[in-house]
Protein backbone atom coordinates (compact mmCIF):
# COMPACT_ATOMS: atom_id res chain seq x y z
CA UNK A 1 0.00 0.00 0.00
CA UNK A 2 2.63 2.45 1.09
CA UNK A 3 4.91 1.02 -1.55
CA UNK A 4 2.22 1.58 -4.19
CA UNK A 5 1.76 5.20 -3.18
CA UNK A 6 5.35 6.30 -2.55
CA UNK A 7 7.66 4.12 -4.61
CA UNK A 8 5.70 2.42 -7.39
CA UNK A 9 5.16 5.59 -9.43
CA UNK A 10 8.93 5.88 -9.82
CA UNK A 11 9.64 2.21 -10.50
CA UNK A 12 6.77 1.95 -12.98
CA UNK A 13 7.18 5.13 -15.01
CA UNK A 14 10.33 6.48 -16.61
CA UNK A 15 8.94 10.04 -16.79
CA UNK A 16 8.49 10.04 -13.01
CA UNK A 17 12.09 8.90 -12.51
CA UNK A 18 13.32 11.63 -14.80
CA UNK A 19 11.17 14.17 -12.99
CA UNK A 20 12.60 13.03 -9.66
CA UNK A 21 16.16 13.24 -10.96
CA UNK A 22 15.43 16.72 -12.31
CA UNK A 23 14.00 17.88 -9.02
CA UNK A 24 17.01 16.57 -7.10
CA UNK A 25 19.39 18.36 -9.48
CA UNK A 26 17.36 21.55 -9.21
CA UNK A 27 17.46 21.32 -5.41
CA UNK A 28 21.22 20.78 -5.27
CA UNK A 29 21.92 23.84 -7.40
CA UNK A 30 19.05 26.14 -6.57
CA UNK A 31 18.70 25.83 -2.80
CA UNK A 32 22.24 27.08 -1.93
CA UNK A 33 21.71 30.00 -4.32
CA UNK A 34 18.41 30.68 -2.58
CA UNK A 35 20.13 30.80 0.81
CA UNK A 36 22.52 33.48 -0.44
CA UNK A 37 19.66 35.37 -2.10
CA UNK A 38 17.84 35.42 1.23
CA UNK A 39 20.89 36.37 3.31
CA UNK A 40 21.81 39.15 0.87
CA UNK A 41 18.19 40.41 1.04
CA UNK A 42 17.80 39.67 -2.64
CA UNK A 43 14.86 37.26 -2.41
CA UNK A 44 12.79 39.30 -4.81
CA UNK A 45 15.73 39.77 -7.15
CA UNK A 46 15.36 36.10 -8.09
CA UNK A 47 11.76 36.77 -8.97
CA UNK A 48 12.73 39.74 -11.12
CA UNK A 49 15.41 37.71 -12.87
CA UNK A 50 12.89 34.98 -13.66
CA UNK A 51 10.84 37.53 -15.57
CA UNK A 52 13.91 38.91 -17.27
CA UNK A 53 14.61 35.52 -18.84
CA UNK A 54 11.31 35.50 -20.73
CA UNK A 55 12.22 37.43 -23.91
CA UNK A 56 15.30 35.30 -24.54
CA UNK A 57 13.29 32.12 -24.16
CA UNK A 58 10.57 33.58 -26.36
CA UNK A 59 13.03 34.44 -29.12
CA UNK A 60 14.44 30.91 -28.91
CA UNK A 61 10.88 29.64 -29.23
CA UNK A 62 10.21 31.91 -32.23
CA UNK A 63 13.32 30.70 -34.02
CA UNK A 64 13.01 26.97 -33.45
CA UNK A 65 9.63 26.17 -31.93
CA UNK A 66 9.23 24.31 -28.66
CA UNK A 67 12.90 23.35 -28.52
CA UNK A 68 14.14 23.41 -24.96
CA UNK A 69 17.78 23.89 -25.93
CA UNK A 70 17.01 26.94 -28.03
CA UNK A 71 14.78 28.37 -25.33
CA UNK A 72 17.42 27.71 -22.68
CA UNK A 73 20.16 29.39 -24.68
CA UNK A 74 17.93 32.40 -25.32
CA UNK A 75 17.00 32.54 -21.66
CA UNK A 76 20.63 32.37 -20.61
CA UNK A 77 21.57 35.23 -22.93
CA UNK A 78 18.67 37.43 -21.82
CA UNK A 79 19.22 36.64 -18.16
CA UNK A 80 22.96 37.30 -18.32
CA UNK A 81 22.37 40.52 -20.23
CA UNK A 82 19.91 41.83 -17.68
CA UNK A 83 21.95 40.66 -14.68
CA UNK A 84 25.21 42.08 -15.96
CA UNK A 85 23.67 45.35 -17.16
CA UNK A 86 21.84 45.85 -13.87
CA UNK A 87 24.95 44.94 -11.90
CA UNK A 88 27.19 47.24 -13.91
CA UNK A 89 24.75 50.15 -13.81
CA UNK A 90 24.37 49.90 -10.03
CA UNK A 91 28.11 49.49 -9.47
CA UNK A 92 29.16 52.36 -11.72
CA UNK A 93 26.43 54.89 -10.90
CA UNK A 94 25.55 54.17 -7.27
CA UNK A 95 21.90 53.42 -8.18
CA UNK A 96 20.71 50.68 -5.82
CA UNK A 97 20.81 47.22 -7.36
CA UNK A 98 17.08 46.62 -6.84
CA UNK A 99 16.11 49.84 -8.62
CA UNK A 100 18.27 49.21 -11.68
CA UNK A 101 17.21 45.56 -11.82
CA UNK A 102 13.53 46.49 -11.60
CA UNK A 103 13.92 48.76 -14.61
CA UNK A 104 15.68 46.14 -16.68
CA UNK A 105 13.40 43.27 -15.81
CA UNK A 106 10.21 45.21 -16.48
CA UNK A 107 11.48 46.20 -19.93
CA UNK A 108 12.57 42.62 -20.51
CA UNK A 109 9.24 41.16 -19.37
CA UNK A 110 7.28 43.52 -21.63
CA UNK A 111 9.49 42.50 -24.54
CA UNK A 112 9.04 38.81 -23.73
CA UNK A 113 5.24 38.97 -23.51
CA UNK A 114 5.18 40.90 -26.78
CA UNK A 115 7.26 38.28 -28.55
CA UNK A 116 5.25 35.33 -27.20
CA UNK A 117 1.92 36.88 -28.11
CA UNK A 118 3.05 37.71 -31.67
CA UNK A 119 3.55 34.06 -32.54
CA UNK A 120 2.67 31.73 -29.70
CA UNK A 121 -0.56 29.88 -28.89
CA UNK A 122 -2.16 29.66 -25.47
CA UNK A 123 -0.71 26.20 -24.93
CA UNK A 124 2.80 27.49 -25.59
CA UNK A 125 2.23 30.37 -23.25
CA UNK A 126 1.09 27.96 -20.52
CA UNK A 127 4.20 25.85 -21.00
CA UNK A 128 6.44 28.89 -20.80
CA UNK A 129 4.73 30.23 -17.72
CA UNK A 130 4.35 26.99 -15.75
CA UNK A 131 6.84 24.56 -17.23
CA UNK A 132 6.30 20.81 -17.41
CA UNK A 133 8.55 18.66 -15.31
CA UNK A 134 6.82 15.45 -16.47
CA UNK A 135 7.87 16.13 -20.07
CA UNK A 136 11.61 16.16 -19.36
CA UNK A 137 13.50 14.52 -22.19
CA UNK A 138 17.04 13.20 -21.75
CA UNK A 139 18.92 16.22 -23.22
CA UNK A 140 16.98 18.58 -20.98
CA UNK A 141 17.60 16.45 -17.94
CA UNK A 142 21.29 16.39 -18.81
CA UNK A 143 21.26 20.17 -19.12
CA UNK A 144 19.66 20.56 -15.70
CA UNK A 145 22.23 18.20 -14.18
CA UNK A 146 25.13 20.05 -15.82
CA UNK A 147 23.76 23.36 -14.55
CA UNK A 148 23.56 22.00 -11.00
CA UNK A 149 27.13 20.70 -11.22
CA UNK A 150 28.43 24.01 -12.55
CA UNK A 151 26.55 25.85 -9.82
CA UNK A 152 28.06 23.80 -7.01
CA UNK A 153 31.60 24.04 -8.40
CA UNK A 154 31.45 27.78 -9.06
CA UNK A 155 29.79 28.44 -5.72
CA UNK A 156 32.66 26.63 -4.05
CA UNK A 157 35.11 28.87 -5.93
CA UNK A 158 33.46 32.17 -4.96
CA UNK A 159 32.22 31.05 -1.54
CA UNK A 160 34.66 33.00 0.63
CA UNK A 161 34.48 36.38 -1.13
CA UNK A 162 30.72 35.97 -1.49
CA UNK A 163 30.26 35.40 2.24
CA UNK A 164 32.57 38.28 3.20
CA UNK A 165 30.90 40.55 0.68
CA UNK A 166 27.56 39.70 2.24
CA UNK A 167 28.72 40.43 5.81
CA UNK A 168 31.13 43.32 5.37
CA UNK A 169 31.41 44.61 1.79
CA UNK A 170 33.56 47.60 2.76
CA UNK A 171 36.16 45.33 4.36
CA UNK A 172 36.37 43.16 1.27
CA UNK A 173 36.81 46.26 -0.86
CA UNK A 174 39.81 47.30 1.17
CA UNK A 175 41.56 43.93 0.99
CA UNK A 176 40.59 42.58 -2.41
CA UNK A 177 38.93 43.21 -5.72
CA UNK A 178 37.25 39.81 -5.65
CA UNK A 179 33.99 41.25 -4.31
CA UNK A 180 32.74 42.70 -7.59
CA UNK A 181 33.62 39.56 -9.50
CA UNK A 182 31.99 37.32 -6.90
CA UNK A 183 28.83 39.40 -7.07
CA UNK A 184 28.58 39.26 -10.87
CA UNK A 185 29.34 35.53 -10.93
CA UNK A 186 26.64 35.03 -8.31
CA UNK A 187 24.12 36.89 -10.51
CA UNK A 188 25.09 34.62 -13.39
CA UNK A 189 24.52 31.54 -11.19
CA UNK A 190 21.04 32.82 -10.40
CA UNK A 191 20.32 32.94 -14.12
CA UNK A 192 21.71 29.44 -14.74
CA UNK A 193 19.49 27.99 -12.04
CA UNK A 194 16.44 29.93 -13.13
CA UNK A 195 16.83 28.58 -16.65
CA UNK A 196 17.00 25.06 -15.21
CA UNK A 197 13.98 25.66 -13.04
CA UNK A 198 12.23 27.24 -15.98
CA UNK A 199 12.08 23.88 -17.81
CA UNK A 200 10.55 22.19 -14.83
CA UNK A 201 8.46 24.77 -13.05
CA UNK A 202 8.07 27.61 -15.55
CA UNK A 203 9.08 31.25 -15.32
CA UNK A 204 6.65 32.02 -12.54
CA UNK A 205 7.52 29.22 -10.12
CA UNK A 206 11.19 28.61 -10.92
CA UNK A 207 12.24 30.84 -8.05
CA UNK A 208 10.07 28.81 -5.67
CA UNK A 209 12.52 25.94 -5.33
CA UNK A 210 15.27 28.45 -4.51
CA UNK A 211 13.61 30.83 -2.07
CA UNK A 212 11.18 28.63 -0.13
CA UNK A 213 13.81 26.08 1.03
CA UNK A 214 16.04 28.98 2.09
CA UNK A 215 13.15 30.42 4.09
CA UNK A 216 12.60 27.02 5.72
CA UNK A 217 16.30 26.62 6.59
CA UNK A 218 16.40 30.01 8.31
CA UNK A 219 14.03 28.66 10.99
CA UNK A 220 16.25 25.68 11.85
CA UNK A 221 19.81 26.99 11.98
CA UNK A 222 21.86 30.03 12.89
CA UNK A 223 24.90 29.06 10.87
CA UNK A 224 25.26 29.25 7.12
CA UNK A 225 26.66 25.77 6.45
CA UNK A 226 23.84 23.80 8.11
CA UNK A 227 21.43 26.34 6.62
CA UNK A 228 22.52 25.39 3.10
CA UNK A 229 22.26 21.66 3.89
CA UNK A 230 18.78 22.04 5.37
CA UNK A 231 17.68 24.08 2.36
CA UNK A 232 18.88 21.41 -0.08
CA UNK A 233 17.21 18.59 1.88
CA UNK A 234 13.92 20.43 2.21
CA UNK A 235 13.94 21.26 -1.50
CA UNK A 236 14.44 17.57 -2.35
CA UNK A 237 11.71 16.52 0.08
CA UNK A 238 9.33 19.10 -1.38
CA UNK A 239 10.11 17.87 -4.88
CA UNK A 240 9.57 14.22 -4.01
CA UNK A 241 6.36 14.77 -2.03
CA UNK A 242 5.11 17.17 -4.70
CA UNK A 243 5.66 14.59 -7.44
CA UNK A 244 3.85 11.87 -5.46
CA UNK A 245 1.03 14.25 -4.63
CA UNK A 246 0.67 15.28 -8.23
CA UNK A 247 0.76 11.64 -9.39
CA UNK A 248 -2.01 10.59 -7.01
CA UNK A 249 -4.23 13.65 -7.47
CA UNK A 250 -5.01 16.04 -10.27
CA UNK A 251 -2.81 18.84 -8.96
CA UNK A 252 -0.31 19.96 -11.66
CA UNK A 253 3.26 19.03 -10.77
CA UNK A 254 4.98 22.41 -10.55
CA UNK A 255 2.41 23.99 -8.26
CA UNK A 256 2.24 20.76 -6.20
CA UNK A 257 6.00 20.94 -5.49
CA UNK A 258 5.85 24.59 -4.51
CA UNK A 259 2.73 24.04 -2.38
CA UNK A 260 4.50 21.27 -0.46
CA UNK A 261 7.46 23.59 0.07
CA UNK A 262 5.05 26.28 1.26
CA UNK A 263 3.51 23.81 3.72
CA UNK A 264 6.98 22.97 5.06
CA UNK A 265 7.65 26.69 5.35
CA UNK A 266 4.44 27.22 7.31
CA UNK A 267 5.38 24.37 9.65
CA UNK A 268 8.85 25.91 10.10
CA UNK A 269 7.39 29.33 10.90
CA UNK A 270 5.29 27.67 13.60
CA UNK A 271 7.66 25.06 15.03
CA UNK A 272 11.15 26.13 13.89
CA UNK A 273 13.86 25.91 16.53
CA UNK A 274 15.28 29.34 15.60
CA UNK A 275 12.63 32.02 16.11
CA UNK A 276 9.63 29.76 15.42
CA UNK A 277 6.37 31.12 16.79
CA UNK A 278 5.61 28.22 19.13
CA UNK A 279 9.15 28.40 20.50
CA UNK A 280 8.59 32.08 21.19
CA UNK A 281 5.30 31.46 22.95
CA UNK A 282 6.82 28.85 25.25
CA UNK A 283 10.39 30.02 25.74
CA UNK A 284 12.85 27.93 27.68
CA UNK A 285 13.93 29.54 30.98
CA UNK A 286 16.71 32.08 30.63
CA UNK A 287 20.24 31.15 31.61
CA UNK A 288 22.34 32.33 34.53
CA UNK A 289 25.01 34.00 32.40
Amino acid at each position, binding site marked *: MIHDALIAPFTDFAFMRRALAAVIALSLGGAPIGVFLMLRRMSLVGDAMAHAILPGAAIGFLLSGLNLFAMTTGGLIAGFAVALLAGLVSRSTGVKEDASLATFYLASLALGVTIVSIKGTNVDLLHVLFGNILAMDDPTLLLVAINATITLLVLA*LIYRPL*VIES*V*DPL*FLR*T*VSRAGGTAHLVFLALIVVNLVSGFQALGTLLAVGLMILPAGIARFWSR*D*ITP*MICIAVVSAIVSGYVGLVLSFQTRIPTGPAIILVAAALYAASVLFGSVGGMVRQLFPAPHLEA
Partner: protein
Amino acid sequence: MSAQVQFSDVTLGYDRHPAVHHLTGEIASGALLAVIGPNGAGKSTLFRGLVGILRPLAGAILTGAVDARDIAYLPQSADIDRSFPISVFDFVGTGLWRTTGVFGGIGRAARDRIARALAAVGLTGFENRGIGTLSGGQMQRLLFARVLLQDARLIVLDEPFNAIDAKTSADLMALVEHWHAEQRTVIAALHDMDLVRHHFPDTLLLAREPVAWGATAEVLTADNLSAARRMCEAFDERAAACHVDPVSSKAA
Protein backbone atom coordinates in the same frame (compact mmCIF):
# COMPACT_ATOMS: atom_id res chain seq x y z
CA MET B 1 62.31 57.45 9.65
CA SER B 2 61.21 57.62 6.03
CA ALA B 3 57.75 58.76 5.04
CA GLN B 4 55.09 56.08 4.90
CA VAL B 5 52.35 58.27 3.50
CA GLN B 6 52.71 61.46 1.48
CA PHE B 7 49.86 63.82 0.77
CA SER B 8 50.74 66.10 -2.09
CA ASP B 9 48.21 68.91 -2.37
CA VAL B 10 45.34 66.45 -2.00
CA THR B 11 41.73 67.52 -2.38
CA LEU B 12 39.11 64.91 -1.55
CA GLY B 13 35.37 65.32 -1.74
CA TYR B 14 32.04 64.36 -3.21
CA ASP B 15 30.43 65.72 -6.38
CA ARG B 16 33.29 68.22 -6.85
CA HIS B 17 32.67 69.74 -3.40
CA PRO B 18 35.85 69.39 -1.37
CA ALA B 19 35.68 67.82 2.08
CA VAL B 20 39.46 67.89 2.50
CA HIS B 21 41.02 70.85 0.75
CA HIS B 22 44.67 71.16 -0.35
CA LEU B 23 46.33 68.91 2.19
CA THR B 24 50.09 68.54 1.92
CA GLY B 25 52.31 66.69 4.32
CA GLU B 26 53.71 63.34 5.21
CA ILE B 27 53.33 60.68 7.87
CA ALA B 28 56.55 59.05 8.96
CA SER B 29 56.85 55.30 9.07
CA GLY B 30 56.03 54.10 12.58
CA ALA B 31 54.18 57.30 13.52
CA LEU B 32 51.26 57.35 15.92
CA LEU B 33 49.11 60.17 14.59
CA ALA B 34 45.80 61.49 15.89
CA VAL B 35 43.54 63.25 13.43
CA ILE B 36 41.19 65.62 15.21
CA GLY B 37 38.68 68.22 14.15
CA PRO B 38 34.97 69.07 14.39
CA ASN B 39 32.30 66.87 12.81
CA GLY B 40 32.39 67.42 9.07
CA ALA B 41 36.05 68.43 9.14
CA GLY B 42 36.90 65.74 6.60
CA LYS B 43 38.54 63.14 8.84
CA SER B 44 36.59 60.19 7.47
CA THR B 45 36.96 61.50 3.92
CA LEU B 46 40.70 61.71 4.37
CA PHE B 47 40.78 58.10 5.58
CA ARG B 48 38.63 56.89 2.70
CA GLY B 49 41.10 58.52 0.33
CA LEU B 50 44.03 57.05 2.21
CA VAL B 51 42.79 53.46 2.01
CA GLY B 52 41.89 53.86 -1.63
CA ILE B 53 38.10 53.66 -1.68
CA LEU B 54 37.72 57.33 -2.62
CA ARG B 55 39.67 58.83 -5.51
CA PRO B 56 41.12 62.29 -4.91
CA LEU B 57 39.53 65.17 -6.84
CA ALA B 58 43.03 66.59 -7.22
CA GLY B 59 46.52 65.93 -5.96
CA ALA B 60 47.83 62.54 -4.95
CA ILE B 61 48.22 60.30 -1.92
CA LEU B 62 51.39 58.25 -2.12
CA THR B 63 51.65 55.24 0.14
CA GLY B 64 55.08 54.30 -1.13
CA ALA B 65 56.08 50.73 -0.50
CA VAL B 66 52.83 49.96 1.30
CA ASP B 67 50.28 48.44 -1.07
CA ALA B 68 46.54 48.40 -0.50
CA ARG B 69 46.64 44.98 1.16
CA ASP B 70 49.07 46.26 3.75
CA ILE B 71 46.58 48.77 5.08
CA ALA B 72 44.08 47.81 7.76
CA TYR B 73 41.07 50.10 7.84
CA LEU B 74 38.47 50.29 10.58
CA PRO B 75 35.65 52.53 9.31
CA GLN B 76 33.59 54.75 11.58
CA SER B 77 30.25 53.14 10.87
CA ALA B 78 31.16 49.72 9.63
CA ASP B 79 28.74 48.55 6.97
CA ILE B 80 28.37 45.14 8.59
CA ASP B 81 25.29 42.97 8.21
CA ARG B 82 25.10 41.73 11.78
CA SER B 83 22.13 39.50 11.03
CA PHE B 84 24.32 37.38 8.75
CA PRO B 85 24.80 33.90 10.23
CA ILE B 86 28.56 33.91 10.73
CA SER B 87 30.43 33.03 13.91
CA VAL B 88 32.85 35.29 15.76
CA PHE B 89 35.69 32.91 14.88
CA ASP B 90 34.95 32.92 11.15
CA PHE B 91 34.40 36.67 11.08
CA VAL B 92 37.71 37.46 12.74
CA GLY B 93 39.33 34.87 10.49
CA THR B 94 38.56 37.04 7.46
CA GLY B 95 41.37 39.26 8.75
CA LEU B 96 43.75 36.60 7.46
CA TRP B 97 42.68 37.36 3.89
CA ARG B 98 46.15 38.52 2.95
CA THR B 99 47.61 35.08 3.65
CA THR B 100 44.63 32.90 2.80
CA GLY B 101 43.18 34.79 -0.16
CA VAL B 102 40.18 33.29 -1.89
CA PHE B 103 41.15 29.63 -1.62
CA GLY B 104 43.80 29.27 1.08
CA GLY B 105 42.98 26.95 3.92
CA ILE B 106 42.85 27.82 7.62
CA GLY B 107 45.36 25.48 9.19
CA ARG B 108 46.39 24.87 12.77
CA ALA B 109 48.75 27.86 12.80
CA ALA B 110 46.01 30.15 11.50
CA ARG B 111 43.58 28.82 14.09
CA ASP B 112 46.10 29.59 16.80
CA ARG B 113 46.54 33.11 15.48
CA ILE B 114 42.78 33.67 15.47
CA ALA B 115 42.51 32.33 19.01
CA ARG B 116 45.38 34.62 20.15
CA ALA B 117 43.75 37.64 18.47
CA LEU B 118 40.46 36.92 20.22
CA ALA B 119 42.31 36.52 23.51
CA ALA B 120 44.12 39.83 22.95
CA VAL B 121 40.81 41.69 22.75
CA GLY B 122 39.22 39.71 25.58
CA LEU B 123 36.75 37.73 23.50
CA THR B 124 37.94 34.24 24.36
CA GLY B 125 34.93 31.97 24.75
CA PHE B 126 32.91 33.82 22.16
CA GLU B 127 34.27 31.82 19.20
CA ASN B 128 31.06 30.05 18.29
CA ARG B 129 28.65 32.88 19.01
CA GLY B 130 26.98 34.62 16.07
CA ILE B 131 28.17 38.17 15.48
CA GLY B 132 24.58 39.36 15.89
CA THR B 133 24.67 38.51 19.60
CA LEU B 134 27.55 40.85 20.48
CA SER B 135 27.15 44.20 22.22
CA GLY B 136 28.49 47.41 20.69
CA GLY B 137 31.68 47.25 22.73
CA GLN B 138 32.21 43.57 21.99
CA MET B 139 31.69 44.28 18.30
CA GLN B 140 34.41 46.93 18.43
CA ARG B 141 36.72 44.46 20.18
CA LEU B 142 35.94 41.99 17.42
CA LEU B 143 36.87 44.52 14.73
CA PHE B 144 40.13 45.26 16.53
CA ALA B 145 40.88 41.54 16.58
CA ARG B 146 40.43 41.47 12.83
CA VAL B 147 42.76 44.46 12.41
CA LEU B 148 45.24 42.60 14.59
CA LEU B 149 45.12 39.58 12.26
CA GLN B 150 45.52 41.75 9.17
CA ASP B 151 49.06 42.34 10.39
CA ALA B 152 49.26 45.55 8.36
CA ARG B 153 52.09 48.11 8.17
CA LEU B 154 49.57 50.96 8.14
CA ILE B 155 46.55 50.92 10.45
CA VAL B 156 43.76 53.45 9.94
CA LEU B 157 41.16 53.74 12.71
CA ASP B 158 38.18 56.03 12.18
CA GLU B 159 36.79 57.16 15.55
CA PRO B 160 37.44 53.75 17.11
CA PHE B 161 36.31 54.73 20.60
CA ASN B 162 32.92 56.25 19.80
CA ALA B 163 30.15 55.01 22.08
CA ILE B 164 32.64 52.70 23.79
CA ASP B 165 32.93 52.58 27.59
CA ALA B 166 36.12 53.57 29.46
CA LYS B 167 37.23 50.00 30.19
CA THR B 168 36.89 48.90 26.58
CA SER B 169 38.60 51.96 25.16
CA ALA B 170 41.47 51.56 27.65
CA ASP B 171 41.88 47.92 26.56
CA LEU B 172 41.77 48.82 22.89
CA MET B 173 44.10 51.80 23.39
CA ALA B 174 46.62 49.38 24.89
CA LEU B 175 46.47 47.45 21.63
CA VAL B 176 47.10 50.65 19.67
CA GLU B 177 50.17 51.36 21.82
CA HIS B 178 51.32 47.80 21.23
CA TRP B 179 51.07 48.36 17.46
CA HIS B 180 53.03 51.57 17.86
CA ALA B 181 55.72 49.70 19.75
CA GLU B 182 55.87 47.21 16.87
CA GLN B 183 56.81 50.13 14.55
CA ARG B 184 53.52 50.02 12.70
CA THR B 185 52.12 53.32 11.47
CA VAL B 186 48.82 54.06 13.22
CA ILE B 187 46.46 56.88 12.29
CA ALA B 188 43.31 57.43 14.33
CA ALA B 189 40.48 59.96 14.18
CA LEU B 190 39.52 60.93 17.71
CA HIS B 191 37.38 63.38 19.68
CA ASP B 192 38.75 62.73 23.16
CA MET B 193 41.44 65.41 23.65
CA ASP B 194 42.72 63.87 26.89
CA LEU B 195 43.30 60.60 25.13
CA VAL B 196 45.14 62.40 22.31
CA ARG B 197 47.34 64.32 24.79
CA HIS B 198 48.25 61.20 26.72
CA HIS B 199 48.85 58.69 23.99
CA PHE B 200 49.50 60.33 20.63
CA PRO B 201 52.85 62.00 19.93
CA ASP B 202 51.63 63.66 16.72
CA THR B 203 48.36 65.34 15.80
CA LEU B 204 46.76 66.66 12.65
CA LEU B 205 44.04 69.24 13.31
CA LEU B 206 41.75 69.23 10.31
CA ALA B 207 38.90 71.59 9.42
CA ARG B 208 38.54 70.84 5.72
CA GLU B 209 41.94 72.46 5.40
CA PRO B 210 44.78 71.50 7.67
CA VAL B 211 44.85 73.93 10.63
CA ALA B 212 47.92 72.57 12.33
CA TRP B 213 50.05 69.45 12.03
CA GLY B 214 52.91 68.49 14.31
CA ALA B 215 53.73 67.56 17.86
CA THR B 216 50.52 67.14 19.83
CA ALA B 217 51.33 69.77 22.46
CA GLU B 218 51.93 72.41 19.78
CA VAL B 219 48.80 71.54 17.82
CA LEU B 220 46.33 71.38 20.69
CA THR B 221 46.30 75.08 21.57
CA ALA B 222 43.16 77.08 22.30
CA ASP B 223 43.84 79.31 19.28
CA ASN B 224 44.13 76.40 16.87
CA LEU B 225 41.01 74.69 18.22
CA SER B 226 38.84 77.78 17.93
CA ALA B 227 40.24 78.46 14.46
CA ALA B 228 39.21 74.92 13.47
CA ARG B 229 35.68 75.48 14.75
CA ARG B 230 35.35 78.69 12.68
CA MET B 231 36.70 77.11 9.53
CA CYS B 232 34.12 74.37 9.24
CA GLU B 233 31.89 76.64 7.20
CA ALA B 234 28.58 75.51 5.74
CA PHE B 235 28.29 73.58 2.49
CA ASP B 236 27.80 75.98 -0.44
CA GLU B 237 25.73 74.49 -3.24
CA ARG B 238 26.86 77.15 -5.73
CA ALA B 239 30.51 77.34 -4.78
CA ALA B 240 32.71 78.43 -7.65
CA ALA B 241 35.46 76.23 -9.04
CA CYS B 242 38.64 76.35 -6.98
CA HIS B 243 41.62 77.94 -8.72
CA VAL B 244 44.15 77.79 -5.94
CA ASP B 245 46.04 74.94 -7.40
CA PRO B 246 47.41 75.56 -10.87
CA VAL B 247 48.99 72.19 -11.55
CA SER B 248 46.45 69.62 -10.51
CA SER B 249 48.17 66.32 -10.84
CA LYS B 250 46.21 63.21 -11.61
CA ALA B 251 45.73 60.74 -8.79
CA ALA B 252 47.84 57.64 -9.05
